[in-house]
């Protein structure tokens, strides 16, 4: 095992761990946040970063190859399509009359 292999393995583990952490944060946001708009904020953002980071880690682990190019293309696809679909869903929800959630404040007019 040469030092370059060790560096690439360490980078793979770091990026994969970061991606898994972001996926966990997205799942927590999807389960715990109070209304649809905050949930779509948390879920799509964290899923975009998590999938991009994990796919980058796998492309690093694979080395310079045609499969690596395909994985980078999938990462670009996710980075393009995940915010677009989240925006389309939030737009549909807002146009059909879903009211965004506001925090109730005691003894104060909601501005």
């Amino acid at each position: 095992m040469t030092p370059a292999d060790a560096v690439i393995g360490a980078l793979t583990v770091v990026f994969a761990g970061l991606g898994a952490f972001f996926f966990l944060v997205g799942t927590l946001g999807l389960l715990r946040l109070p209304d649809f708009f905050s949930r779509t904020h948390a879920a799509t953002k964290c899923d975009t970063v998590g999938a991009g980071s994990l796919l980058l880690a796998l492309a690093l682990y694979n080395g310079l190859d045609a499969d690596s190019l395909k994985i980078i293309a999938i990462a670009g696809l996710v980075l393009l399509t995940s915010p677009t679909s989240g925006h389309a869903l939030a737009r549909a929800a807002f146009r059909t009359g879903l009211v965004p959630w506001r925090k109730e404040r005691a003894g104060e007019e909601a501005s």
Partner: protein
Amino acid sequence: MSGFLWGVAIFLLVNAFLCLWRAYAGPTVVDRVLSVNIVGTKTLVVLVLLSFVFERSLYIDVAFVYGLLNFIVTLAASRFLETGRLRGDWS
């Protein structure tokens, strides 16, 4: 390294099953569509991970098609929710 990739894949699958609870109990329809979209993204990453575990590069192409279908499904569902139909102009 294969064990590590197995671990990440199992972690993502547990996350995906937790997301399915929102698809079951979500108060609105858009919550359910968003949850299915998120599960689809996680499945895409799991497919690429499993292509390394089983050493079959065919799964990468399957993941690509999965991502494209996921995008189309979410756009079609949101358009249907907004306008009530799938074909024709937006008016």
